[in-house]
């Protein structure tokens, strides 16, 4: 089979690296004229401290820079182009007004070290967001400091540790279901805990019988995800929380999947003591090609003394202030108080929706996932039969008979103009295909995706090679990752 022609001579398909493009003397930048006396740098400091030049740093014009990055941008898939069905990632539309609001000069140029009276606007935005997140999650207090979801996990588990420590014993273990995201065990390890895995049952949820055997007085907490990474609600959660609490342990929740439950059910009402919330998932702050994210942590009253400092205080006179006097705090997890630009965007989204809007968001997110499920369940094997919430997990079991695997299906979807779903995760489902459409997709977009998936299923049956050699229409084909990792080239070098 011959591959469709992929190469083009146009720059837009062959843009070089910046370092290959520069030309001495080009310039994209001017400074105002110096208005203080000029002196040689060597008069002001030991010449030993000064560098001579920066080898390899290119000189470019403004047009060069604009063309370069515009061309690069055209090689990316993005949410404004179409469906981005990454399970557990909640790739939803990012409202444009969020961006505009975060760029208001009064926010973009605010400095957290100025006296309280000079930063009232920023503090009010943060406090209001904290209050909204507490209400949505059913918790008592919130910190906005963590920079991302995994950072929120670490913050939450450090608070669990501080809580147990304050009662005389930090305990040793964190229990984590085998369907959990990899950051959960990694975060627990950095907080100084040993991780023990809890098996799932044949419904795709926590095996509560096994869990009861594992809980003892050495356990500091269980880290659950609900709905879990299979999109299934842990229906025994209340009982699980009760048995964990009976041993003095706490329940941590990974809030990655909050998009399924806003206004429907609240973690604080089903026994959760601490959870992190991904503003870049549920609350539409953009993913930015991999960050910045934002991972606020919400807690019940018992954990409130351990929040990172500073906390934002509402004063009797209607003003706000940072309170650094927090003797039981776990300390700081990040300089200043979190990814403020993301806080503005998330609050803007929450205020745009209100309570009824957020409930509608979760309802339609669940509707869209179930629509995909109902249309694909005869062509792809469902991993578990339990009811799906905001995402649905299939496996490649049926296609694997023709030696077509999940990665092949993913790559072939690109030829149909879609970003692939999350693949090979959760780990407990061999060949997992994890689809989360979110509420911001229309029926037409979902139907086009479903059609593509059904077409690929036919191809896998009739012409498996076509699927296995995909993608055929992208700028580059599959990268040889093994070769790239064997002899890593992590930077450009002159002549190399």
């Amino acid at each position, binding site marked *: 089979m011959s*591959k469709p022609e992929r190469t083009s001579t146009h720059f837009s398909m062959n843009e070089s690296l910046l370092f290959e493009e520069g030309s001495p003397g080009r310039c*994209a*930048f001017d400074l105002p004229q*110096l*208005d203080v006396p000029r002196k040689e740098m060597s008069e*002001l400091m*030991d010449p030993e401290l*000064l560098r001579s030049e*920066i080898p390899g*740093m290119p000189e470019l014009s403004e047009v060069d820079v604009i063309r*370069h*990055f515009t061309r690069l*941008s055209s090689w*990316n898939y993005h949410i404004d182009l179409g469906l981005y069905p990454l399970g557990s990632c909640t790739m939803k*539309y990012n409202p444009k*007004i969020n*961006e505009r609001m975060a760029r208001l000069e*009064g926010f973009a*140029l*605010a*400095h*957290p070290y100025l006296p309280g009276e000079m930063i009232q606007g920023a503090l009010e935005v943060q406090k*209001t967001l904290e209050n909204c997140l507490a*209400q*949505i999650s059913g918790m008592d207090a919130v910190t906005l400091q963590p920079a991302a*979801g995994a950072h929120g996990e670490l913050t939450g588990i*450090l608070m669990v540790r501080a809580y147990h420590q304050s009662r005389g014993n930090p305990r040793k273990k964190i229990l984590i279901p085998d369907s959990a995201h990899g950051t959960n*065990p*990694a*975060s627990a*390890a*950095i*907080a*100084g805990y040993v991780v023990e895995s809890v098996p799932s049952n044949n419904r795709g949820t926590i095996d509560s019988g096994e869990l009861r055997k594992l809980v003892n007085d050495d356990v500091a907490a269980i880290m659950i995800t609900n709905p879990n990474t299979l999109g299934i609600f842990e229906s025994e959660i209340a009982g699980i929380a009760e048995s964990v609490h009976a041993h003095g342990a706490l329940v941590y929740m990974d809030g990655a999947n909050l998009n399924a439950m806003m206004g429907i*059910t609240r973690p604080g009402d089903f026994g959760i003591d601490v959870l992190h919330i991904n503003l870049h998932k549920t609350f539409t702050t953009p993913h*930015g*090609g*991999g*960050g910045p994210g934002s991972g606020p942590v919400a807690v019940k009253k018992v954990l409130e003394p351990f929040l990172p400092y500073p906390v934002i205080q509402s004063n009797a006179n209607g003003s706000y202030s940072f309170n*650094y006097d927090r003797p039981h705090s776990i*300390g*700081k*997890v990040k300089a200043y*108080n979190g*990814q*403020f630009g*993301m806080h503005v965007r998330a609050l803007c989204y929450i*205020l*745009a*929706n*209100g*309570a009824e809007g957020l409930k509608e968001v979760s309802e*339609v997110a669940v*509707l869209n996932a*179930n629509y995909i499920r109902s249309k694909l369940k005869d062509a792809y094997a469902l991993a578990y039969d339990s*009811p799906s919430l905001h995402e649905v997990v299939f496996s490649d079991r049926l296609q694997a008979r023709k030696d077509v695997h999940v990665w092949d299906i993913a790559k072939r979807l690109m030829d149909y103009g879609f970003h692939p779903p999350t693949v090979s995760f959760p780990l407990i489902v061999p060949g997992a295909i994890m689809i989360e459409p979110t509420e911001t997709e229309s029926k037409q977009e979902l139907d086009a995706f479903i059609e593509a998936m059904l077409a690929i299923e036919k191809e896998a049956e009739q012409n498996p090679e076509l699927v296995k050699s995909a993608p055929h229409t992208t700028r*580059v*084909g*599959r990268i040889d990752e093994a070769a790239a*990792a064997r002899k890593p080239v992590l930077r450009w070098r002159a002549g190399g």
Partner: protein
Amino acid sequence: MRYIPNSQADRQRMLAEIGVDSMEQLFSGIPEKLRLRRFLDLPRALSEPELLEYFRKRASKNEIDPALFIGAGIYRHYIPIIIDALISRSEFYTAYTPYQAEIAQGTLQAIFEFQTYIAQLTGMDVANASLYDGSTGLAEAVLMGQRITRKHKFLVARTVHPEYLAVVDTYVKNLGIQVEFIDYTADGRLDLEQLERKLDTNTAAVVVQSPNFFGTIERTHVIAEIAHKRAALSITNICEAISLGILKPAGEDHSEARTADIIVGEVQSFGVPPSFGGPHVGFLATRDKYVRQMPGRLVGMGKDFSGRRGFVLTLSTREQHIRREKATSNICTNQSLCALMATIYLATVGPKGLREICEHNVLKTEYAVTQIRQRTKHRVLFAAPRFNEFVVQPADSRQFPGLPLSRFYPELGNARLLCVTEINSREQIDAMVRSLAS
């Protein structure tokens, strides 16, 4: 709701095709007793014009005058317009982490360029795809130092940004790592004698910042040499990345004994607005030999199966999604969009522009220091060379610009940390000096 395309009629059709009667039925997996049977108690929904008014009103309550002369890890530099024009492209800001390399080459190549710039500027072999910020970056550098040396004692300069030190403390205190502090001397730099005294063969690494929190420039090459003599690593932290345009990087010297092993820091100064403390963007650079101990994402250059150059996330066997609790870090993402801002900034200013910006920072700061010394009775502390910050001991209790240092350094009493950058005009500096002189 304006962000949800499917109308009520669409939804009814979809429910019918699924074969359920109502939305309610889709939630049958959630036990009734856990259902919230009321609306959340949130502010009422706002229309777009109302949102504009709401946020404009709050934004206007923040003071943003550049003549407040405040830095302390967050710097006001000129931000070229083209940065926002480029990062406002949906192709960049609404894309996901580039796991699917074939349709994420734009992000991947830009990160590869970021890694190259950081390596060039620091004089190191490699840099990662960026970290959340400088403070968490420093904590990650310390953990990396422990992995490399398998030792647990760190000697850390007190003049490292105090909030970075607080973050390091939070990260390491449960992992058996001890931090001992090294004081500063009267010239505002690390006390080298004390460092020599406290260094022993159990020391994992020496951690310094340059320019340090007081704005003075450390002798990072001498410090690296001292550390290496006792087989400790040398970790240099940089809060003010602009300084790399003029200061000899800790990663570069004629002798390897005099270079840092890990250079970590914050590049907010490269085109990222202060934004009340975030998002900013951290970096971590090191030697080739330590690559596999690095935290965070890395982008590598590779080839597709027909031989075309392409970029891809690599060395992921270090990472949490593969190694789970044995990963080098729990980090799942980088700070991609901010790293892109820094990359565009560096492409825009170029090597000459960066050097000129540095010169303006140094000269304007020198001018401010000279004027305060000549025209006021307040004392400028610390004689060592400085970049764009300095410490003043006010002679009286008048209103003073800058950051009060007593929260972090009680021994400095009423001292203030001031910052002057290229955006501050002579007029602003003169006005400030006049207000301090009268």
